[in-house]
Each structure stands twice: as C-alpha cells, then as structure tokens.
C-alpha cells in the first residue's frame, strides 16, 4: 500500500510540476512538451485508479493527436517570445479568477461527498463492480447502450461543426492544374502513342 501511495504522489507531483512549467516556461515549444508530460502523468494516475481504458484513450487522443497539432503550430510560429511575455502579468487577475472558480467547484463536489456520503453513491450506481466487468466493457455499455441517443447527438454536432469548418475554408480557385489519378490510370498505350513507319526522306 505504501508503494501504491508513493507512486501516486510521484505521478501527481510530476503532473502538477509540469502543469506549472506549461505556463512558466519561456519557450512555447517547451510549454507544449511539458503539457505532454502532464497528460502522461494524468494517464498514469488513471491507470493507478484502474481506469486503464481512459488512460489509453487520454494518451491516444491528447498526446498522440491533439498535442502533435499543438506542437506543429507552435513550432512554426515565428514570433518574438520576449515581447509576448511582456505584460503577461496583466492577465493574472483573470487567470486567478478562473482558477478560484474551478477550485470552488471541486471543493463543493468533494465537500458534498464528505457531508452527505449518499451523494457519492448516486454517482456510482451505474458503475458495475470492476472485478466483474472490465472498464472497457462498462464504458461501452454506458456510452453505446444506455446513452446511445446522446452519443449520436454528440456525433451529429461534431459532424456539423466539421462540415461547417470545411465549408468556411473551401474556396474554388481557377487555373489550377490538378492531377487526376483515375484519368492517368485509364490511359492506355494506344491512346497516346502512335508507331509510324517513316519512309526515308519522306517525313511523317
């Protein structure tokens, strides 16, 4: 049990420390790298809680895809970071306010569990016993069976957002020469090459 707590505190400490480094690192690329470290340690915390599926999905989605795009964009930015740092402190009140709101909400949630223990039971009723069902299976049955309509609705909203983004950025440009692979593959030798017997001094 001691080892379990020690690993928990290790991952938690690294996650918090890298979270601090995300906002305090001078170089934005370093910030993104610390963000990845923070994701990783959160995934490790999920594993410690027995939520292995969530841990893997966190790594696949956030580290494997989202953070790559972040890094991609941040690396290509060509801005003077000193200048950007300048005046960053004036955002401190807003950032602090957001932090305090989040903290208050967390305190309310956990406080209500401490004050009224039956509140925690309400949240855990749909969760099957982890020793009977793997959490992949449990998540699947909650997401795709119990709440399938909400899941579909979320999917539709995302689809509409995606179509909207494509429509907004699509523009037809004239005078562009595009490669048509089907046309290329459909070309036969007889369409393009003509073998001609040229008589001497005759020309074609």
């Amino acid at each position, binding site marked *: 049990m001691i080892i379990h707590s020690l690993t928990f505190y290790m991952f938690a400490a690294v996650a918090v420390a890298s979270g601090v480094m995300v906002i305090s690192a001078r170089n934005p*690329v370093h910030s993104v790298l610390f963000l990845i470290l923070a994701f990783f340690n959160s995934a490790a915390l999920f594993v410690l809680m027995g939520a292995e599926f969530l841990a893997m999905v966190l790594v696949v989605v956030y580290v494997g895809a989202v953070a790559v795009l972040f890094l*991609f964009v941040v690396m290509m930015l060509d801005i003077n970071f000193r200048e950007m740092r300048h005046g960053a402190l004036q955002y401190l009140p807003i950032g602090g306010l957001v932090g305090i709101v989040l903290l208050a909400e967390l305190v309310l949630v956990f406080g209500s569990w401490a004050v009224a223990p039956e509140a925690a039971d309400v949240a855990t009723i749909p969760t099957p016993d982890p020793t009977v069902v793997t959490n992949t299976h449990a998540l699947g049955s909650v997401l795709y069976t119990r709440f399938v309509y909400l899941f579909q609705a979320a999917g539709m909203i995302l689809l509409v957002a995606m179509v909207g983004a494509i429509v907004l950025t699509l523009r037809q440009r004239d005078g562009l020469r595009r490669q048509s692979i089907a046309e290329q593959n459909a070309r036969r030798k007889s369409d393009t090459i003509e073998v001609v017997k040229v008589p001497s001094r005759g020309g074609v």
Partner: protein
Amino acid sequence: MVDFWASYAWPTAKIVLYIIAIVVPLLLAIAYLTYAERKVIAAMQMRKGPNVVGPFGLLQPIADGLKLLLKETIIPAGANRVVFVLAPMITFILALVAWAVIPFGPGVVLADINVGILYLFAISSLGVYGIIMAGWASNSRYAFLGALRSAAQMVSYEVSIGFVIITVLLCVGSLNLSDIVLAQQNIWFAIPLLPMFVVFFISGLAETNRAPFDLPEAEAELVSGYNVEYSSMAFALFFLGEYANMILMSAMTSILFLGGWLPPVDVAPLNWIPGPVWFALKIAACLFVFLWVRATFPRYRYDQLMRLGWKVFLPLSLAWVIITAGVLVAMDWLPDTIAG
C-alpha cells in the same frame, strides 16, 4: 521483511529479468535486421552485400555498432541542447516499451493487460515526438522540413490504422492481445479481412517512415531529413528505433492478422513447433516484405502520400468497419463477450 521480499522485491527482480530476456534478443534482432536488409536488397539488385567482416559478413552489424559508438557526439551550436539530446532517447525508448504487452506464446507475455492493443496504438502514435523534437531542436531547415512531413504523415496514417484495429476488435470482442490471437484459432483474420490486412500493412510502412513513404528522410530533397544534425550514438538510437518500430509493426501485423504464435494448421508436425518460433517466423516474413517493398517501389510524392491516406485508405477502412459490423450482426457471429 519477508513480506516486503515476497510482495515487492521478488516481483520487481522477476520483471527486470523478463525485460532483459525480451530486450537483449530484440536488440540482436534489430542489429541483424540491418544486416538482412543489406543482404536482401543486395540480392534483389544482383550485388553481394556485406561480405567482408566475418563469415558471410555476419559481424558487419557489430562492426557498424562499434564504429558509431566510438564516433564523436556533436551538438550543433544553434541547437536546443536538452530537446536535441532527449529526442533520440524518446524514439528508442518508445520503440522498446511497446514490447511489454506483446504475447510471444500462450501466456508468454510480460504485461497481459486488458487494453493491450490500445496500449500498442498509443505507443506507436507517440513515435512522432522523437522525430518532431529532433527536427525542431536541430535548428536546421532540412531537419525541420523532415519533421513536419513526418508529423503530418504519421497522424494521417494513424487514423486508418485505428479503423483497421476496430475491425479486428469487432471480430474478437476483446482488447487483450492474447485474446486476439486465440480468436484466430479457426481462421487467420488475414483471410476474411484481406483488404484491411493490406491497408494495415501499407499504413504500417507509412507509420514507420519506410520506403516508399520515407519522405521524412528523403535523401534526395532533405539530405537525410530529421536526423541530419545527429552523429554517433544519437544517430544510432534513431536508426535502432526505426528498425525496432519495423519489427514492432511486423509483430502487430502477425498478432492482428496472421494468428500470432498459432501454427498455420493445428495438425501434428506443425503444432510440435513451439509458439514463439511461429511468431518469430511470421515477423520475419513481414519484415522480408518491408525490405522487398523498399527494393521495389519508388518514393511517393508528398501530395500522393496524403491522397492515399485520406482519400483512399480512410474511406475504405471506414466502409469496411461498417460492412464487418453489419455482417457480424446479420449473421449473428458477434463474439460472446460483445453479445453477452
């Protein structure tokens, strides 16, 4: 004290022993994969290949390794030192940690976790960081262009790999790699899911940055891409990581589609051969195709690469997921774990 020994120290020692038992043969396999690559391509191009160091040139990989080890490590003046040194380490470590969940035989696996295939998918999607960090930290145009190409390429092909994995999972009903292998006792998934097998293999080529998708290190345009600025062991780590990823991709192909450690047919002379040998043979066969492809096909142009990933493989694999799911439901072939 006895309790501490029994519950912590002994399991840790055992795991370390298992890790050594996996990593040492893996490193040897990587070394001899480079040798096999040179020999196979030489044979295909009617050359001799390495034949000077040792009998049949068998000591060539050792000589190459020693040479790289003894060279000077150079860190460019404009480089971001920490990230520059970290990048090859990340590439190599990620190539090794994935092997923790690979089942070599019935029950012969270091960590038999429930979400094995997701773990593999997660680790292989992280491979891009080594390259992208190397490209950025080198502070060089060529390296940076290589890194950008690689990031876009690996993200694109991961999508179709994900759908292929979902197709296989629909037929298995479990994310555990041992279960995936055991589900293929009657028929290897390569036969009913042949198009997905092909898509997976080609995406694997793109994911490991191998020819004909080796644009991140296209030597004709980018000198050598993301690793131009690296020398000595740092370069060797990239090199070893790339080859370890090739072996890993072949291992994934054999587990998902070629029945892992299972013999082709469960009859007398074939099932006497132990499972790990079958597994190694299947990996070797996949690796041979990797090398064969490299000796055969010209490199793709960048827009063709993106077209193949997004406009051909993605719709194809998406359609196949739907077809597979439809057939499984219509025929009532869903595995028990899903239906129940």
